[in-house]
């Protein structure tokens, strides 16, 4: 019985992932015939793709949708990100689609390489986001979006070993992002504030919650930066994290440089400090990300 339930869950899960990819493909086919490819936003104002595949900075989802689509347009993006810290390596492959600068759907696969312990943890993430107010550049207030990230481990062995409560979980967040034109000696300044409710241990890679505590926690995430040229942004990020497993999970920081050579490509290099992961302290290193527009 347990076995068949497990198989059923596996099937359901792979169906969700398939649906995400099918929906993204569907958007391409539908919009490719009726709408324009996304190029309506100003360079760099699409933002980037964050670790879980949503439009954002690097660590944090932003209120921006990860494409250059404006009203009546669509965009599709492929992103590959690698985070290389002392004892671990995280590889993220993501696909996202957004339309009319209104909705975003994203799919991401995490491959988490336990270099020191040996082994690998895989996780799928499906993200949804909707812009509910504002324009990141022009509105008086910030652009505001709400979103969710549904995450599911492909193999929950390590999560259950650590007494995590679940192998799947959903984060919900609200983000506010604003560009202030010429605010810093003529340079464009931007900031983002995100409030996330989550049960995820280390993005969910170590499962969700703990067998003794599986209630949602609210965590803030903050990013800020400057466009030093039309194509180059530098900034800082902070992401508060829960510590359900009592493994001294720590908050994350990064310092990033993002390069936007065109509306088709963005490149990010960052120094990231991920603190203690699974009892291994001082996990810091390089974050590299490349996004390509497919529309």
């Amino acid at each position, binding site marked *: 019985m347990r076995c068949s339930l497990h198989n059923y869950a596996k099937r359901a899960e792979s169906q969700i992932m398939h649906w995400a990819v099918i929906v993204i493909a569907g958007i391409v086919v539908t919009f490719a015939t009726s709408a324009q490819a996304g190029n309506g936003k100003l360079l760099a104002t699409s933002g980037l793709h964050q670790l879980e595949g949503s439009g954002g900075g690097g660590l944090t989802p932003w209120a921006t949708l990860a494409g250059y689509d404006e009203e009546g347009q669509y965009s599709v993006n492929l992103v590959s990100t690698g985070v290389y810290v002392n004892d671990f390596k995280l590889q993220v492959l993501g696909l996202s689609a957004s339309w009319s600068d209104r909705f975003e759907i994203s799919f991401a696969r995490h491959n988490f390489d336990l270099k020191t312990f040996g082994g690998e943890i895989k996780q799928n993430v499906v993200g949804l986001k909707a812009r509910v107010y504002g324009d990141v550049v022009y509105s008086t207030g910030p652009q505001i979006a709400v979103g969710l990230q549904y995450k599911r481990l492909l193999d929950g062995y390590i999560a259950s070993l650590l007494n995590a409560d679940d192998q799947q979980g959903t984060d919900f967040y609200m983000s506010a992002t604003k560009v202030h*034109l010429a605010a810093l000696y003529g340079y464009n300044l931007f900031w983002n504030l995100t409030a996330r409710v989550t049960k995820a241990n280390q993005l969910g890679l170590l499962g969700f919650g703990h067998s003794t505590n599986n209630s949602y926690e609210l965590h803030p995430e903050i990013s800020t930066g400057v466009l030093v040229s039309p194509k180059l942004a530098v900034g800082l990020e902070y992401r508060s994290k829960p510590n359900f497993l009592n493994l001294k999970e720590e908050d994350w920081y990064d310092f990033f440089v993002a390069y936007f050579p065109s509306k088709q490509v963005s490149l990010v290099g960052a120094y990231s400090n991920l603190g203690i992961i699974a009892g291994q302290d001082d996990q810091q290193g390089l974050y590299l990300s490349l996004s390509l527009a497919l529309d």
Partner: protein
Amino acid sequence: MSFRTFAFLCWLILLVNGCAKPQSLYARIGGQPVIDIVAGNFTNEISFSNTIFPYFSETNVDKFQASLATHLCDVAGGPCSYTGDSMQQVHAGMQITKNDFNKVVELLQIAMKKAGVAYPLQNELIAKLAPMRKDIIESKNNDKR
């Protein structure tokens, strides 16, 4: 240096800075000669743009360019006052989308770059023009944000 001397010097610096009249954006950009080049470049960029040029099919180019130069001078704090039609009147019924608006911003950026206007000054001018967006665009679902 005692703390008192230090405090006095700080106060003096603040006073001098505060009293010195900050130069207008118009002056820092390079005054009317540069504004005129920007207006000329911008008019050229529009004429090369397949998406934007159709909006100008019935426009008198010379009149537009002169009116734009006055408007930019005014907005940048120069010694002109723009007395032409309001942005709302000029763009009424043209169904200008957010995409079109951003495209025009891009053309203006190119025009300023070609005129040698430094990036921070480009941003300052765009910041002064940005509030006009709500009078220019027309959104299908009236979502002007």
